[in-house]
């Protein structure tokens, strides 16, 4: 089974992040820094990672996210595991 389109993965991430962290969806952009736009710290980033893993039913080792802070790159990392 092939991975869903890149835009759909990205959309699902943005929707989940906006909903969980109670940020207006339109404030989140694919290349935005999620630490800044969501106002989250490292522990909340782990929380987001866990929610994304549950949502996409994948396992995403956190070392793959070292240095990643924008939604687009995050979506690419997730798609590589779908």
């Amino acid at each position, binding site marked *: 089974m092939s991975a869903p389109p890149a835009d759909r993965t990205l959309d699902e991430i943005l929707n989940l992040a906006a909903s969980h962290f109670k940020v207006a969806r339109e404030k989140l952009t694919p290349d935005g820094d999620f*630490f800044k736009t969501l106002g989250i710290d490292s522990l909340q980033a*782990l929380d987001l990672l866990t*929610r994304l*893993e*549950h949502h996409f039913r994948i396992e995403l080792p*956190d070392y793959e996210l070292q240095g990643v*802070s924008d939604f687009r790159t995050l979506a690419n990392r997730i798609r590589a595991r779908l």
Partner: protein
Amino acid sequence: MNDFKGQTLSWQIVNGTIELALHRDPCNEIGSLTLEELEKFATALPELVNESQALIVHSTLKAGFSAGADLRELFQRGQEMEKAAALRGVREFLERIHSVMNALDAAPLTTIAAVHGVTFGGGFELALVCDIIIADRMARFCFPELRLGLIPGFGGIPRLKRDLGNAVVRDLLLTGRSFNVMKAQQIGLVSQIAAEGEALRVARATASQVGKFDRRTAAAAKEFVKPIPYEELKREIDIFCDLYSRPAVEAGLRKFVESTDAQPYLP
């Protein structure tokens, strides 16, 4: 002492179950004060066991069960002392915490870790001494010690080896990656998953169930299926102390303590 309220933890007997609650901000880092209070608990345990059917260990803090050893204290002590004295202090700390962990591991009643959020390093090791781990859906586990140039020091490797296949242990240890409850259940580490915020309630229901059985039978079954790897535990202390003396550890601890990185918890 049937109940106790300390600075880092508290315990009480609730409906025949001992509930040991961790509550040291920010995420139950285990340093000398927590160790002192854990030792108080271990001393009180033989008496508590007579009046209870099970033990639940949990955290009252939102961030999680425990982020592990207090690395800031470890770094600070290393800076304040001459090297040989610092090493003696580390060995003494490890021997004391192993003594507590071994007492919990061998306790003649069913022990349950109800974990949520961050369950890392020494916190993970504390959960591993318990007979049953019940995890909140958002719990996350990790052994990040290798990034500091160390191995887990509170009994983690021998207890992981007791419970899991060696290939999985190598993956978790050598990558230092964190993993979620689905993975934890898949590899056989977590036996029950609770909805968000429900781990303690599920643990209480489980404690109530185990309390229906004959105490002596349950203790005999536990002793039979859960041997304590004393020799490997001693070896772990030796290896930890050998590694602690190396300059890479001071550099790793300094990097962690002084980090302003947005992802200091990510190995």
